[in-house]
């Protein structure tokens, strides 16, 4: 890493390269991004446009606000509140535990077996959502689960048979993918803290507290908060696990969409699912706006 850094220090303004640059190449430079823009245009922006326009359309394609007004009902508002609480709790708890784990990993040998094992495990577990995760927790905390039986026989504690269908029951399940995601997302940032900086701080007489207060903390805070927002969005938009755990009712906003989508193919209100989708997009959009502000702050450090 020190090799590429040396020329930067030696020549802050690279002299020979700029001669080839100029307006002549602006157009050809843009061509390089066309395949990417074309693909995302068709498979990301087009579906988004379909949802955006659909939320304000009635069954025959005319403009209406009925879909938006229909979201004011208590069931939808409760589901939204539940989703926000669940996402916030699992994002903060997951970020703290995952952040500590990520830091702890970097204090070990960089190529060590422990770190390789944990990184590989995390990249699998971070995406271990879906039905499989529901199977795993039913086998653990379900009526006949291992932990349920162990607690009942050893401590006499009975776990509510419906625990996994409740909001608090979702928390351990969601943490199972939130913590690994935090490790993956946060590890590169912690890796950026070089041992040399710590040593430099010590050479100048700084304590551990001084290092974290003036060097480590300020450097890691923006990526940490950014990760919390990412985890919030991740939990807020999770669907498959909750859908497998709860089939009777729809306590989360993502499940409300499932319900609306199913009823849409029947005789339900047309395009209500798209309006719910828009609501989700707005909530997560606020998170992402904050994330952008943090990114701008973090990139000031990088320059």
């Amino acid at each position, binding site marked *: 890493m020190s090799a*590429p850094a040396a*020329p*930067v220090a030696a020549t802050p303004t*690279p002299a020979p390269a700029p001669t080839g640059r100029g307006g002549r190449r602006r157009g050809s430079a843009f061509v*390089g*991004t066309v*395949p990417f823009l074309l*693909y995302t245009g*068709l*498979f*990301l*922006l087009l*579906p988004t446009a*379909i*949802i955006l326009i*659909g939320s304000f359309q009635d069954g025959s394609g005319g403009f209406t606000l009925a879909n938006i007004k229909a979201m004011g009902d208590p069931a939808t508002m409760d589901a939204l509140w539940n989703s926000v609480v669940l996402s916030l709790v699992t994002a903060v708890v997951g970020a703290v535990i995952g952040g*500590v784990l990520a830091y*702890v*990993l970097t*204090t070990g*040998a960089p190529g060590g077996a*422990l770190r*390789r094992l944990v990184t*590989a495990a995390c*990249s*699998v577990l971070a995406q*271990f959502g*879906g039905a*499989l995760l529901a*199977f*795993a*927790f039913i*086998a653990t905390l379900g009526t*006949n*689960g*291992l932990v349920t039986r162990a607690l009942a026989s050893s401590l006499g504690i009975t776990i509510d048979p419906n625990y996994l269908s409740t909001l608090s029951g979702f928390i*351990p399940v969601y943490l*199972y993918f939130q*913590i690994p995601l935090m490790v*993956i997302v946060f590890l*590169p940032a912690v*890796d950026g803290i070089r041992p040399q900086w710590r*040593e430099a701080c*010590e*050479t100048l*007489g700084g304590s551990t507290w001084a290092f974290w207060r003036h060097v480590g903390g300020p450097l890691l805070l923006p990526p940490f908060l950014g990760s919390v927002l*990412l985890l919030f*969005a*991740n939990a807020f*938009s*999770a*669907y*498959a696990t909750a859908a497998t755990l709860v089939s009777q009712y729809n306590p989360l906003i*993502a499940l409300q*969409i499932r319900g609306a*989508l199913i009823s849409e193919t029947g005789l339900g209100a047309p395009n209500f699912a798209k309006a719910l*989708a828009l609501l989700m*997009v707005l909530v997560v*959009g606020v998170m*992402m706006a904050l994330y952008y502000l943090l990114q701008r702050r973090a990139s000031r450090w990088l320059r």
Partner: protein
Amino acid sequence: MAEMTGTSAPLVQAESPLAPLRPARSGPRLRAARRRRQAAIRWVVVVLVLAFFVTPMVSMVDFTTRLLSGKRSGIAWRKVVDFGQLDPQAKDLLVDGLRTSLILAVLTVVIMVVLLVPTMTWVRLRLPGMTRTIEFICLLPLIIPAIVLVVGYYPIYRFIGQHFSTSSVWLALAYGVLVLPYAYRALDAGLSAIDVKTMSEAARSLGSSWAGVMWRIVVPNIATAIAGAAFLSVALVLGEFTVASLLSKNNLQTSLVLVSSADPRFATAMSLVVLLLAFLLLFVLTFVGNRRRARR
């Protein structure tokens, strides 16, 4: 540990001429104490987190081998070893789902690497003004998650079904979008860690082509990041349920859920196997990524 002492050795040498300064003398001793403390904390944290993550796995093993009466039975695992013992309909469903998911994993990684790596590098080097735009597009699937996106995909996949085919392989185009935020963050971290601009300017001034910069400068330097992005993509595709199920396509997850209602023990056993296979694959890939970094 060997590497830790390796990094500190030259520093001690560099400090020794400054022996009269106090921090230089106390430095190594402080560091040694801190390392011992760090090692202890490391193991406590890892063991605690490990317990949380291993318990559901152990429970799955327990669940697959335990009948409701409390007796043990290996029937679920015999079915995993030999799909022939499954109901023929379930077998066809599962084999098809498994094959589809593997093909989708490969296609998704190809789409991700071929589109994202050159575009992100290109934008950094030549179009810095577009960085925010590309980042916004890449993070958009977080704002518009799968459950939402699938509503918009519905008419698009109806069009593909009418004009091309209804094959589940087309899901790769949707999955390429779903992995964007994770792949972007992994690659962005890798690109931020190196000074792409200075390195490419150095290469260009020495006569390298843009393709040469890409292939010989950028890719080797962010190999770990590319491997990381690929890990996430594979794991996401193998675990994807929402889009496939709501678009009525068959992949590994949807087939397992269908099989699970009739045979939950087998479905749970199969989930464990899938998880372990994915884990093994990614562990091998991590080795590759690390070897490259070590060579550098």
